[in-house]
């Protein structure tokens, strides 16, 4: 059933961007989930189904593979897209740099979502710098509607100049929602047709030099391409001062121009394509204005391309903060200052206290971390990226570097201690999806180099943190499921056992056995298998909530060491109680309490 056209719908930025990709005739889409980009691929799939278009849509094992699959589709002449978060682009940067030189046939769009703040990322890196490094154009939407629109613009630009094009939304675009009008889906009816041309598609270094010259030529032309040129939002005004803004900062500026009554006082230019910045725009800025304020996130990418800096105020000039999110209240202060208005009194912001995020009540990861601390109390605990990073609250996470690094770091710790004549218990934790993504090469390395540690693969059979996307262990309708246990065995690991961490005593005993093996022989892998509680694909179990008897001594072990948010200290008394609002009835606390004070009636 095709979707009724021209109706307004509430769409999240990621859904709108996905809509734009499908409307523009995208045929192959591949992604790896990561906040704030996670909803893009699922939405592509929904639009594909709703509009009944033929597409290949896949959750790839990691961003590099996702980009390579989509890029290859473009080599066959189809329109294709890949989506990821900014640190995912680090993983995919190798093929991206090369693809920029080789160019494309069908339109090829790389969505890399940034997270100024950061809200849910390791870094605040600006993907537009990656576009500069790769020498590809990048578009900067300021709202969900612009994200939808720019998807089509990006495909056109990509095909016109045979170049990959990046769209760089930020969290405030991805996770904003807006009323959006759907447009009809373009059906390009292309068929895949790969034209062999080894001198291009498999170019040797000598030809890469030629391709680099070609790329530079394309960039010069793209810096004069009409459809992505900066938009002056009040061209009727003639002023000596101008504001240049892109992305969400441009949206804040639009509202603030009204609130501060600046619309008839100075020009506001919205930059759509921060790189390459249109050359005639740079020339006219410098010719027409005495002072220019540049508002953008997160690095001064537009600003650095305005070569004469004397007139420019921004991040490089020190006026605009260089880290953190450019919130509308900050933009308000900057605009007022730039316009020479009395800076509006900023409302005092409450100290951000509140709550730290924590693993869900009943999350199997909590049981795993508790068991790890019991089994190896003096150990080092390298960990990884996912919900289980929150094991830091329990003292079960000592390091988090990047996807898959828990395993290489475990090996690094082992080798560093060994070479200086010491031994340490090392227990690394990695999620199942993260293991598939980047955990296999370091595991092979560890085995081949004789490292000794325990690796606990926290297998909840889903990608939990980003909204429960499937992993290769699910396979796909056309493919086969890939099992973690056989991968681990295939990597040459001599000790592989699987158990449910919610069975706390048995799981702790298994960890001790694995530790004994790792001290004497090599890498031991324990697969902690238990489903994620918020995974809708897993049927909810009705489990009875426990109660706390008068045997509770108030020792606080279950709160401080085990950290289940459903266990609270009575405000007045000396005992712990179970919060009936959130307890999942997992029953692990029964085994945590040394005094057997937490009890429950078993369901017969």
């Amino acid at each position, binding site marked *: 059933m095709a979707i009724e056209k021209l109706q307004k719908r509430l769409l999240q930025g990621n859904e709108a961007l996905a809509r734009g990709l499908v409307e523009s005739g995208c045929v192959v889409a591949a992604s790896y989930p990561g*906040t704030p980009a996670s909803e893009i691929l699922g939405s592509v799939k929904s639009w594909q189904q709703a509009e009944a278009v033929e597409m290949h849509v896949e959750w790839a094992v990691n961003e590099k593979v996702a980009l390579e699959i989509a890029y290859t589709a473009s080599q066959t002449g189809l329109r294709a897209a890949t989506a990821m978060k900014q640190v995912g682009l680090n993983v995919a940067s190798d093929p991206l740099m090369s693809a920029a030189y080789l160019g494309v046939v069908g339109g090829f769009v790389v969505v890399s979502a940034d997270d100024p703040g950061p809200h849910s990322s390791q870094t605040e890196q600006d993907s537009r710098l990656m576009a500069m490094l790769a020498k590809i154009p990048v578009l900067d939407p300021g709202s969900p509607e612009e994200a939808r629109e720019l998807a089509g613009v990006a495909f056109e630009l990509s095909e016109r100049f045979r170049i990959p094009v990046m769209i760089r939304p930020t969290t405030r675009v991805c996770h*904003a929602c807006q009323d959006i009008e759907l447009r009809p889906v373009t059906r390009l009816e292309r068929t895949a047709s790969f034209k062999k041309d080894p001198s291009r598609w498999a170019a040797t270094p000598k030809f890469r030099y030629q391709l680099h010259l070609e790329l530079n030529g394309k960039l010069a032309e793209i810096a004069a391409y009409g459809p992505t040129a900066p938009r002056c939002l009040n061209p009727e005004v003639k002023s000596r001062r101008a504001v240049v803004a892109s992305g969400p900062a441009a949206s804040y500026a639009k509202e603030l121009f009204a609130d501060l009554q600046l619309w008839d006082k100075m020009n506001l230019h919205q930059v759509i394509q921060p790189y390459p910045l249109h050359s005639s725009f740079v020339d006219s800025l410098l010719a027409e204005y005495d002072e220019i304020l540049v508002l953008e996130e997160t690095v001064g990418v537009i600003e650095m391309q305005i070569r004469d800096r004397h007139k420019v105020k921004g991040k490089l000039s020190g006026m605009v903060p260089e880290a953190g999110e450019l919130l509308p209240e900050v933009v308000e202060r900057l605009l007022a200052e730039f316009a020479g208005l009395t800076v509006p009194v900023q409302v005092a912001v409450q100290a951000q206290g509140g709550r730290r995020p924590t693993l869900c009540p009943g999350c199997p990861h909590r049981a795993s971390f508790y068991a790890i601390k019991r089994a190896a109390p003096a150990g080092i605990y390298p960990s990884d990226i996912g919900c289980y990073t929150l094991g830091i609250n329990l003292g079960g996470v000592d390091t988090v570097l990047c996807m898959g690094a828990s395993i290489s770091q475990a090996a690094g710790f082992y080798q560093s201690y060994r070479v200086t004549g010491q031994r340490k218990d090392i227990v690394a934790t990695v999620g199942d999806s993260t293991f598939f993504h980047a955990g296999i090469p370091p595991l092979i390395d560890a085995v081949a180099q004789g490292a000794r540690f325990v690796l606990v693969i926290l297998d909840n059979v889903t990608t939990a*943190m980003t909204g429960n996307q499937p992993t290769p262990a699910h396979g796909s309708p056309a493919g086969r499921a890939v099992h973690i246990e056989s991968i681990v065995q295939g990597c040459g690991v001599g000790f592989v056992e699987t158990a449910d961490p919610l069975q706390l005593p048995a799981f702790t005993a298994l960890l001790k056995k694995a530790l004994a093996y790792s001290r004497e022989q090599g890498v031991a892998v324990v697969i902690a298998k238990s489903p994620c509680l918020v995974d809708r694909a897993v049927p909810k179990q009705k489990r009875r909530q426990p109660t706390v008897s008068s045997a509770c001594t108030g020792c606080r072990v279950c709160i401080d060491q085990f950290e289940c948010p459903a266990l609270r200290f009575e405000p007045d008394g000396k005992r712990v109680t179970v919060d009936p609002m*959130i307890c999942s009835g997992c029953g692990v606390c029964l085994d945590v309490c040394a005094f057997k004070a937490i009890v429950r009636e078993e369901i017969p």
Partner: protein
Amino acid sequence: MNQQLIICGVGGQGILFVTRLLAESAIAKGLPVLTSETHGMAQRGGIVVSHLKVGAFASPLVRPGRADALLSLKPETVALHLHFLKEGGAVAANAQQSLADVAGHPVSLIDADSLALALGDPQAVNLIVLGRALADSGTLFCTAEEVEAVIRRKMAGKDKQLARALAAFRAGLEAGGKEDGAC
């Protein structure tokens, strides 16, 4: 009409759902709408906040001192987000005792935790508070009937879910009718 709202609580309470119900009510009334949601790590029990702007706006974020109303699903998140309220902006909150530091704001409280447990549906706190906020007519840009129509549309065909949602929503609405709201 222009209205700016903040909806807050902790991860897992269904703040996104309430935000989207209100946003879709705006669309049903033919009003433009922008919202901003919290996703990612904070959704695991951390502080979650939605911004919602109905009317002529270009960006989804509410500036401090600009919100017309604050809906809070946890007592402690009122103080954390009170700075978003404009002078005289309204508070509707889930709380068992009266709140400190809300002087100058009309406040509607409801013990949504107890009501939800009584309904046998601890997940329903969000709809109870939404119902409570809509009980004071004129606080929000839309009416209880308009929101109920959206709930019915969203859950069409899921009878059990719909019955539970409506029971919670009405419990909040009726509690508002009984008390006199301000305290």
